């Protein structure tokens, strides 16, 4: 009979914590948003999590980090915990999961498929006949639009622009 090594079970527990943390400004888990870059667990139970921010000035970043820290520290057997944001790779739309996209759409938030400049699709009626109202919306990661067909205002998830 084999036993999982302690760091393997700690790592699983760490991922469980990460999957339970939501972005306070978007109704999805940070794992579906693609914020988690990697998780390291060593033999002493130290857990190190590195995150990729969507928008670096987002006030939710500190909240998210705090919630992750609290969750990780509560894992039995966890040693020192460090949670940091890294910039060695940019956050891109590919990091978001299909589930995350569906959840945002269910909340009336359109998500571009891959590029920031592509025309959005109305999340209510599917029309592409939409007009932008403002590049800057209620949070740093949202723009506001109105659908010309169904007349609904809607928001669009705003990714940082590609280079």
């Amino acid at each position: 009979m084999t036993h999982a090594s302690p760091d393997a079970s700690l790592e699983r527990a760490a991922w469980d914590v990460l999957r339970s943390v939501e972005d306070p400004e978007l109704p999805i888990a940070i794992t579906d948003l693609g914020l988690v870059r990697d998780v390291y667990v060593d033999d002493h139970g130290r857990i190190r999590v590195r995150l990729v921010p969507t928008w670096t000035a987002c006030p939710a970043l500190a909240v998210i980090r705090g919630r992750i820290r609290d969750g990780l520290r509560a894992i039995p057997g966890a040693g020192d915990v460090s949670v940091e944001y890294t910039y060695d790779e940019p956050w891109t739309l590919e990091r978001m999961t299909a589930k995350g996209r569906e959840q945002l759409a269910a909340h009336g938030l359109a998500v571009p498929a891959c590029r920031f400049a592509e025309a959005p699709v109305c999340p209510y009626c599917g029309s592409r006949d939409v007009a932008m109202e403002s590049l800057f919306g209620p949070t740093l990661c949202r723009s506001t639009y109105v659908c010309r067909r169904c007349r609904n205002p809607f928001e669009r998830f705003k990714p940082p622009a590609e280079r």
Partner: protein
Amino acid sequence: MTVPAPSSTITDPTVRAAFQEWLVRIADDELAIGHRHSEWTGVGPDIESDVAMSSIAQEELGHARLFYEQLSGEESGGADRLAFGRRPEEFRNAVLLEQPNQGWEFSIVRLVLYEAYETLRLGLLAQCGQEPVAGLAATLGREERYHGLFGATWLERLARPPADARARVQAALDAAWPYALGFFETTDADGVLLRAGLLPDPAERQLDAWEAAVRPLLERCALAPPAGRPCLGGRRGIHTPALTEMHAAMTEVWASDPEARW
């Protein structure tokens, strides 16, 4: 446990000081423009522009914080101390960015000129080879794109006929341009960074690239930059009275209790 390599460090103290001076300029620029933009919150010309300018302010202040954190390291409260605990003459921001808003057209002209410069500068910083600063610069460059789009849209709107509207925008450009040339003011640090290979382009080439970036938009708007000498000083800590006034407002809360944790 595989831990990523630590960030590279500069061993030569002169080069390190020059690199830090560069980061202080960037952070101070972002803090100053972020503060001035934030003064439009609640009084923008329409709700969308109010939200936009406030969002841009929030981002510039956030970027300032990230650069102050690079400078202060792990020190608790270090970023706030750099932002709010220094005297006005210790700031290295370009003088344009501390000027009062005056009117919406001035703020838009300033935003356009600054965003073009910032895009250029972040591109240079992304090539400096020093991590995590280079990665941070690349990341911030992607965010700034939206600021430039907002500024260009507004400038074209403002510069449309009737002629007196364009005359007001031209007057704002006449006022802002000599100060904007101060973005490119150099100190000994620039030579050190160039020789050390951290900064790829000298100031003259940066200025040419910046002019090439802003001129097409200005021409589309039938605006022309004025002739005249640059207004310098900011990169050496020589500022206008506008900074003293702004500094007093900006630091008031922090100075009331520097040890407080927010």
